[in-house]
């Protein structure tokens, strides 16, 4: 597909661009360790000290953390400009995207490619440790778990992307989205770093229905490492992710039409 070809070309170009700020690049990678690593250490310390949380031990929570890390990495890697869409709406940069013979979303996604190395390395690190430890405890077979983790991350990333895209699309009407994102993205991802069992029922319900980010980490983990729900939840999650993606794309297209017919 020529579009994939285009994307690869762009990713390479974008990487070259970032390499001009080598220090920044290296540092932002290190910063991920600083911010997310410290946060995880902080929480892990507590969980370890008090022997588990909501019935989950520290390695199980670590697995959730790693899944979320990968989701975030993949989403921001391919669609960092979807995440930062507000500036396009405010500076009128969106007009330029509409001048290309390619779908707007694709041009937008090609504007920047970020390798997200920090997240990927940290995620892999935590994932490896947790799977090994759970394997040693006889809870899982790490090879099988790893095999299942790949599609889980895939559907999780699609879900995260669908979420980000919907939020961005809302911007066609409201023009400001960075603050809405704090709720749909920051707050929910933060919540999904931990087993949903620690939350009261209404909150769990929200995270599995209205803002179904629970399907990016909690639901797959329930099957893959806890074995509490069946294998069928994996294709079901994937289906849900696809449905949400279609919905988000619809909303996006609708938003562009709205933008074109109202302007700014």
């Amino acid at each position: 597909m020529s579009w994939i070809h285009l994307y690869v070309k762009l990713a390479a170009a974008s990487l070259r661009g970032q390499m001009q700020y080598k220090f920044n690049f290296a540092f932002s990678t290190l910063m991920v360790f600083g911010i997310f690593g410290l946060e995880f250490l902080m929480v892990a310390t507590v969980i370890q000290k008090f022997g588990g949380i909501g019935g989950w031990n520290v390695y199980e929570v670590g697995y959730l953390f790693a899944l979320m890390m990968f989701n975030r990495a993949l989403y921001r890697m391919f669609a960092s400009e979807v995440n930062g869409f507000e500036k396009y709406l405010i500076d009128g940069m969106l007009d330029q995207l509409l001048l290309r013979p390619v779908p707007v979303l694709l041009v937008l996604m090609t504007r920047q490619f970020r390798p997200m190395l920090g997240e990927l390395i940290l995620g892999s690190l935590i994932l490896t440790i947790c799977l090994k430890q759970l394997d040693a405890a006889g809870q899982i077979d790490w090879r099988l778990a790893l095999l299942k983790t790949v599609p889980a991350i895939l559907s999780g990333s699609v879900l995260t992307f669908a979420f980000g895209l919907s939020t961005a699309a809302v911007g066609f009407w409201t023009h400001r989205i960075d603050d809405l994102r704090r709720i749909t993205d920051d707050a929910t991802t933060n919540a999904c770093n931990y087993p949903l069992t620690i939350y009261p029922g209404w909150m769990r319900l929200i995270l599995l229905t209205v803002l179904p980010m629970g399907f990016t980490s909690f639901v797959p983990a329930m099957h893959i490492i806890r074995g509490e729900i069946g294998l069928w939840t994996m294709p079901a999650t994937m289906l849900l992710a696809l449905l949400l993606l279609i919905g988000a794309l619809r909303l996006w297209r609708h938003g562009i039409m709205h933008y074109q017919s109202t302007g700014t």
Partner: protein
Amino acid sequence: MLSLTVARKAYAQNLLYRSAHIMRTIASIAIGYVYACIWIGVGDNQSLGQYGMYGMLSYIAFNQACLWTIFTTNSLGIDGLVRTGQISVELMRPLPFFTYMASKEFGKIYYQFLYATIPIYLVYMLLLGIRIPERPETWLWTLLAIFFGAYISMCISYVIGVVALWTTESRWLGSLNWSVSSLLSGFFIPIEWLPGWLRPISMFSPYPCLQYIPTRLYMEMNGPSTLIISASWSIALTLLSIALTRILRRRLEVQGG
């Protein structure tokens, strides 16, 4: 008073973005609630030391509300001033640069205190029923501690802003400060529960003044004597800031503005 006017202007400027602000506050309430739930989850099968589960809930909730008083602008925007050359204009203002920047920042902090800290606190008080001080004077000590915390946080950002002039990027120093702060200030873990090697680092840093000291005062677990620590750090950081401003001025003069 000039610095009061500057603060008032900064306050009014922040009032403009209300709807954005409401979203931010809701997100903040939700994130704080997540942290509280983690402690509740942990406390399921363990009593949580001297705090108890209910105490920990109050501890986290109060910290989350106070977080907004120590949310300062990254390096107080000094890096931006330098990049645009605006700094030479700011340095020529009729009040000292540090006082000017501090006044501006305090306008913002005061705004955040009124429109974020207080609403968040009230929401937690009503929904989670967090602990309320028994002795009336506790309110005074707590407010004082919060004020010192805000001031210290502001000084740290100022120092970062000035120090960053010697490096190429100040953004990373700012975010490093932020993540270290969230660990060492006792925001999520009370300092006495930090791993052994981290505890002394935290104790000898100004970070506990930002959250641990105000919250412990609020929960009536420490007496007002801990305010001496906050006050000392405030004085020390003020002196450091003033000294650095002097160096900054000299450096800019050498460069020719």
